């Protein structure tokens, strides 16, 4: 399985490409869920959290630990930076804090096609790759960023449901 994860093609984003583009999905029918391995192994044991409505009250997203996040109705969210895909009034969103102790490439995995931005003191980071998760794992979308050490806000927008699973992992 780990090998299959390595084989996943992450689409290298062109220079200046934004955070989180969505791709077509022609997925195989999944009879049972499959647990991802490697860096994504923590995906199967999410801990609960409630997203913040603004950066000041955003809870910390632990790196390497999957989190089942309860989002807010979009009109109740005050984003530090307006998302490129803000979502409609009937969608859901929220904010999480992200502490990066060691600079490197980090992957954000989601179980939905929500739009995400990692916002630091200089604005939103640009993604370097995006793609699908491994088949039948429940990971719908993955976005990679090169992240300098520091404190960031992970903005989630345009989610179709109040619940979303998020995992941030460093890539080797």
């Amino acid at each position, binding site marked *: 399985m780990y090998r299959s994860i390595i084989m996943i093609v992450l689409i290298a984003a062109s220079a200046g490409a934004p955070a989180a583009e969505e791709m077509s999905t022609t997925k195989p029918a999944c009879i049972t869920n499959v647990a991802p391995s490697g860096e994504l192994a923590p995906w199967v044991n999410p801990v609960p959290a409630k997203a913040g409505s603004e950066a000041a009250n955003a809870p910390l997203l632990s790196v390497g630990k999957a989190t089942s996040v309860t989002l807010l109705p979009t009109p109740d969210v005050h984003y530090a930076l307006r998302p490129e895909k803000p979502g409609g*009034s009937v969608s859901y969103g929220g904010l999480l804090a992200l502490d990066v102790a060691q600079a490197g490439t980090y992957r954000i995995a989601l179980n939905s096609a929500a739009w995400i931005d990692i916002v630091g003191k200089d604005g939103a980071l640009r993604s370097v790759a995006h793609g699908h998760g491994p088949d039948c794992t429940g990971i719908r979308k993955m976005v990679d960023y090169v992240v300098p050490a520091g404190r960031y806000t992970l903005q989630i927008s345009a989610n179709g449901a109040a619940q979303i699973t998020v995992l941030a992992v460093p890539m080797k």
Partner: protein
Amino acid sequence: MKRRGSLAALAVFALGATGIVSERVRAANNANATTARIELGRRLFYDADLSQDGTMACATCHEQRHGFADGNRTHPGVTNEAGRRNVPGLANVGEFSPLTSADPRLTTLEAQVSVPVLGTHPVEMGMAGREAEIARRLGRDACYRRMFAAAFPGTADPIGYANVVRAIAAFERTLASHGSAYDHDALSADARAGQETFRRDCAACHAGKNFTDLAFHRLGAIDPAAADQGLFEVTAHEEDRGKFRTPPLRNLSVTAPYWHDGSMPTARDAIARHGFVYPPETMRRLEVLLDALTDHDFLSNPAFALPATACGRQL
């Protein structure tokens, strides 16, 4: 008598002047309404409340930096149903009819808007049968109420699906792209050399200022087993199997992948798919020409971007 005649002439003049003023007022009002309709359409184009769960706007797939295409083979809808066809760019879309790759019935932007919003083959924005819900969502916003009233003056209840469609179409008609090196007659020597090849091998179908004859063609033999039968799916005429409308080529460098199903990752792949085999230098010059069809101002024009404000407040 003479005085009576002067008065009559004065009255006629006054009536004529009133008519002129009325005409000018009417024209000004129409211009204001048109401007308001475009502004409303732009906001709606970027509003995901036009989709079932608030996650997809027109702009979700039609991204400005991609010439209002989206950079993926196809795009799944709100129910995660896979898309069937590659998202087309919208440069100069107001000049096109028919509008989509395989449906000659879609001759107006107003008609085309409902394909993603209400369509079910595949489901994109998922609002079939929920047109009233769109109006309900938009009507909750006081700014939208003002924008609809300004865009459709004299209408008792302007917030409705029909006016949503009209406004989006009005905005889309503003998506003009005529600022490429090709338009400015600023082609490099390589691009001009590529233009010779293009004129000889491509321009019969990629014709005119938008590089499309707007006609439906098939490349290669009929394949009844192909998942997408193109024009045949509408006409049921055997000869229409596998026919698709010639795609326009403006902003081609930012609209990859190509083909009706997005199966050609690069322009070079798409050219080869036509059956052309060129020496490397000929291919390179042809690619230089195609790159020269990119209108960078169009890709960053703030008048086409996600609006930051509406009714004088930040969105």
